[in-house]
């Protein structure tokens, strides 16, 4: 009886959570279809897709997202691995450092970036390419709390030290251990960190706006200011596109071995 009651409440709370999430989405979808008076149509979507600025800004943010994900993984997995292996006492310090982007407001952070990197000796705002380097570094910092935590949880799920020693005793060097043992066993952790990291870059507004780069966030704000139905269509499309990209990342990161064990001892 008790199990059944728990079961019912689980469904009730699950249903409420779904409503909380999908009702606004449904509202937005419904509104986006009412651009033509008196009937549902895809006119708002057609208008958005006809705007070349939309595709270019989405493309820019998607590329930036992929670069950010790649660099974050390359930066955080070896770092967290090294901390676990060599200086486990430094983990609390890492936790504090990686939480800083939550404490320091993004606007303050952006002004700091602009102030530091708009003049010599590290001038990174002179050309679009250099600014892209700066914005990518900015995105990596903003994504740091999510990426660190995902990798941290992943490292905890395996016995890093013993697996490393086992690989060493078999003749593997550090790079081989990282590539053959650590990265593959962190796949789910890396994937979940990557998904959040990518979604964060796609929706990010302040860095793109203040560093004047053609990112999706500033474009959406601009459209939201000027028009009525298109922002709703844009919101639905950006949702769909983000989910599609995340799905693709997940599909490719599986590497075709669907039955492979991903983590655990």
């Amino acid at each position, binding site marked *: 009886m008790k199990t059944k009651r728990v079961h019912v409440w689980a469904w009730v709370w699950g249903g409420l959570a779904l409503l909380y999430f999908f009702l606004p989405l449904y509202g937005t979808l419904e509104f986006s279809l009412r651009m033509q008076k008196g009937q549902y149509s895809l006119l708002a979507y057609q208008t958005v897709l006809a705007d070349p600025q939309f595709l270019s800004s989405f493309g820019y943010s998607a590329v930036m997202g992929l670069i950010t994900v790649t660099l974050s993984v390359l930066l955080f997995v070896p770092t967290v691995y090294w901390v676990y292996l060599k200086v486990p006492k430094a983990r609390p310090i890492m936790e504090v450092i990686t939480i800083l982007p939550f404490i320091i407001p993004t606007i303050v952070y952006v002004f700091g970036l602009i102030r530091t990197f708009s003049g010599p000796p590290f001038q990174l705002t002179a050309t679009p390419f250099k600014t892209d380097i700066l914005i990518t570094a900015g995105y990596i910092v903003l994504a740091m709390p999510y990426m660190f935590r995902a990798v941290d949880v992943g490292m905890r799920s*395996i*016995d890093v030290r*013993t*697996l490393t*020693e*086992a*690989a*060493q*005793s*078999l*003749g*593997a*060097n550090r790079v*081989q251990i990282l590539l*053959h*043992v650590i990265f*593959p*066993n962190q*796949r789910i952790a890396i994937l979940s960190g990557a998904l959040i990291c990518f979604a964060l870059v796609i929706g990010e507004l302040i860095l793109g706006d203040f560093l004047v780069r053609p990112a999706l966030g500033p474009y959406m704000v601009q459209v939201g200011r000027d028009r009525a139905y298109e922002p709703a269509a844009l919101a639905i499309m950006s949702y769909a596109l983000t989910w599609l990209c995340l799905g693709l990342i997940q599909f490719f990161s599986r590497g075709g071995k669907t039955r*492979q*064990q*991903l*983590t*655990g*001892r």
Partner: protein
Amino acid sequence: MSYLELTNIHKSFSGFTAVIDFNLGVQPGEFISFLGPSGCGKTTTLRMIAGFELPTSGTITLAGSDVTFTPANKRNIGMVFQSYALFPNMTVLDNIGYGLRVAGKPKAEIAQRVAEMLRLIQLENFGKRYPAQLSGGQQQRVALARALAFQPKVLLLDEPLSALDAKIRVELRNEIRRIQQQLGITTIYVTHDQEEALSVSDRIVVMNQGRIEQAGTPTEIYNFPRTRFVASFVGTINQLDCTVVDAARGELAYQGAPIRTALSLHQSAGSTVKLMLRPEVLRSGLNGGHNNLTGRVESVNFLGSTARVRLNLGETTVTMDIFNERQLELPQVGQPHTVNFLPNACWVVEEEGT
């Protein structure tokens, strides 16, 4: 010179000395066990041989080369861990072949060697499974095959059976010994289980507080322990405080009762010594006028092939093991009982220690 030689090894960790003056020579093909309680330095010594820890001082030579500072991945030493440490992302085949893969061996050679190893550990049909799909015993066999596949100079096993249940432990320890003898590989085995060490080793190194207490064959360690620690750690021992009566003739007294030993003692008459007796040398009944101990039966545990009787002698308790037979009549708890032993079945250590 030995195949593997550890000379004057010391290891300290920030204020704590884990290994003190460790000297050992291991011959090719020898099976050596490091036996001792937790924290005695046995695993630290093994890790220094593997290259995971650097000795604070001393040298390690392997096949004539000094490997003290050689990185672990260049030593060509295979290791089996207590927690198996199989790579969860790889199949059994990939796990076993990993050492050969990183050594850059051709795929055909790897496949052939892995198949050989699977036959050796009798898991031919498990190659495509992942570690999580195997039992603990199977995982440890795979770990053993992985450690052997790349033909290491030495095989190290760090408490490999501790995580397994009792029946599998016995099976697997015999299998480890069979494989070791079949391949003739020099092996060092760390354990805190004396039965394990006694049953599989050519030689046992008993360690305590970072030092070697005694190194010898299993029978030497059991029958001729050099220190009180070895005597009490390996097997069960009865210790009786006796007074020396006639040192030259090996005559003692225990609570006034005469004790004869086959030993020639150097202690002066009247001094106290510890008389050491294994439970299996005690026999029920009187034996003439000496070497008799009478007390009250405290407990009787029937264990199948043997029965363990504990006899309260007043100031101490002695344990006696009796082999089972169908007509065996066990002493009754609470009843008086006399046991005796032969003069050559005991030995003596000085009261102050070793």
